[in-house]
């Protein structure tokens, strides 16, 4: 039976994890996701799961690493400065091929920054953050409902590919309250292959989980294996959303909170006769390069809007291969761009185009 709730993004995230079957959570308080840690402290207990408020974000991700080794569905959450601390653990999980979910409720940075929602961790999430040649599947919700849905799905993806998966949200989505709907009988995400877990070598060969490969050529071979996995994900797991794109020649590219503003801008621009549309990446990795490239071939001009100094815009430029047609508008330090600001930018593109003709 479908139940309706009014929920914050943070709590929706927690409930999505619980419903997916997550029964191990380790975290540390940090604004703006404290509601999530507190929520998990109650829900894990209610579901006979394990909750640990760790001594640091650093310790928390290593606890998830330990739990993941046993095949448990494990999650840790934090916000930007805490996610910086988790980079070590993420790299280790990627190298050891362990499933796990990390949620970043992004706030303004760099350094201590502030506690407003922002989008300045795109590079950190998609281009590494941790050391070594690895990738994380990164899902970017744009509503409380999606925060629930994507957190729920992230466990399945982590399990399917034996890798850490990130849900990249922000302080606005985390704190806002919206409708949340899900089936009360929703089933836990089915467990994937468990032939690699450590649970005591009973009636089987002892196993070793590690990312250290010192032998001649061994680490390269391991990396080749990881890369094969990433190529497969790039082929099969790209997700994106489009809005009024069919005849659009001015496309706003935005993700998360900003995509909501972008949608409103598209409607207002259309009222003024501008053929505007929105392209919204949902997986930030794997990034929808091909889809943007195809759009570019139609002569589209893009405005990338982010709450950052310009991070995703680099991937858009890579896809479009024509910098003249990719404009950027960003607000930093947790400031939110207004519809007026974005609409103004799209109109400027239109002006430039007209002058060229």
């Amino acid at each position: 039976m479908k139940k309706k709730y009014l929920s914050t993004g943070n709590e929706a995230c927690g409930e999505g994890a619980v419903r997916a079957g997550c029964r191990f959570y380790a975290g540390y308080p940090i604004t703006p996701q404290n509601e999530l840690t507190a929520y998990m402290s109650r829900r894990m207990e209610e579901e006979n799961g394990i909750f640990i408020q760790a001594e640091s974000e650093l310790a928390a991700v290593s606890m998830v690493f330990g739990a993941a080794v046993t095949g448990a569905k494990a999650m840790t959450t934090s916000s930007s400065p805490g996610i910086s601390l988790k980079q070590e653990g993420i790299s280790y999980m990627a190298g050891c091929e362990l499933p796990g979910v990390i949620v970043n409720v992004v706030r303004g940075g760099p350094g201590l920054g502030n506690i407003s929602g922002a989008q300045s961790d795109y590079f950190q999430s998609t281009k590494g953050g941790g050391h070594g040649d690895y990738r994380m599947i990164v899902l970017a919700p744009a509503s409380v409902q999606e925060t629930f849905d994507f957190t729920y799905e992230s466990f399945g993806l982590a399990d399917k590919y034996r890798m850490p998966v990130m849900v990249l949200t922000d302080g606005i989505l985390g704190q806002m309250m919206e409708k949340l709907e899900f089936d009360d009988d929703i089933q836990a995400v089915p467990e994937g292959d468990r032939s690699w877990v450590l649970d005591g070598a009973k009636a089987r060969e002892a196993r070793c989980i590690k990312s250290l490969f010192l032998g001649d050529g061994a680490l390269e071979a391991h990396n080749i294996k990881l890369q094969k996995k990433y190529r497969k994900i790039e082929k099969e797991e790209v997700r994106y959303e489009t809005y009024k794109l069919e005849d659009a020649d001015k496309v706003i590219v935005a993700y998360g909170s900003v995509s909501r503003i972008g949608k409103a801008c598209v409607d207002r621009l259309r009222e003024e006769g501008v053929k505007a549309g929105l392209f919204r990446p949902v997986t930030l990795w794997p990034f929808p390069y091909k889809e943007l490239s195809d759009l570019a071939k139609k002569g589209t001009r893009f405005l990338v809007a982010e709450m950052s100094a310009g991070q995703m815009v680099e991937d858009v430029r890579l896809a479009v291969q024509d910098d003249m047609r990719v404009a950027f508008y960003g607000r930093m330090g947790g400031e939110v761009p207004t519809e007026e600001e974005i609409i103004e930018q799209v109109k400027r593109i239109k002006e430039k185009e007209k002058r060229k003709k």
Partner: protein
Amino acid sequence: MVGRFTKPRSMKDVTTHYCPGCGHGIIHRLICEVIDELGERENTIAVAPVGCAVLAYDYWDFDTMEAAHGRTPAVATGVKRVLPDRLVFTYQGDGDLAAIGTAEIIHAGNRGEKISVIFVNNGVYGMTGGQMAPTTLLGQTTATSQFTRRAEKEGFPLKVLEMMSVLPGVAYLERTSIHSPKDVMSTKKAIRKVFQTQLDGKGFSMLEIISPCPTYWGLTPVKSLERIEKEVVKEYPLGVIKQ
């Protein structure tokens, strides 16, 4: 009666990579002997450190894993909480436990995590070339205390075991050594005690073992054992600290 001295069942038949006179070989073997005697090989999950013993899993025929440097007790916490009836132990050196992992060891103890910690204290960082460790003695020369360790600039040898003794969640703490056959036997008894503490569900247990590092002490293996007897145990007294 003619017997055969063989490797314990839990120990893999591999060539050692450790230096001549290193304590790890002895300690690895004692752990395997105890695990076999307790019949726990199929129930054990071990977390290896970063340090010379990073390759400990090459010697042990039970489930093993690595951990990021210092995070070992946090990783073990994750494992033990999900699988509370397994024997989960960490094996850590001076850097892993007493430097980068100080927060993790204290909090694992403070939460009373039912894990066992084998702390190998040889007063230097071997793997990386003999740098000063928190456990390096005053007056000791190392790669990063080239003018010897001086209290005013380099601080004092850290007594983690004594620090841990005030934590109510900690059930058993002992310090032993392996510089003589008698001490080797004491260490084996202590390893068994520490594992049994976990198996009995009593709480967090930790054994600190004073071990030699001939390479970075600049001494022969025999002289290293003498140094432990004459100098190190004076700073790090042997015995049960808490039970």
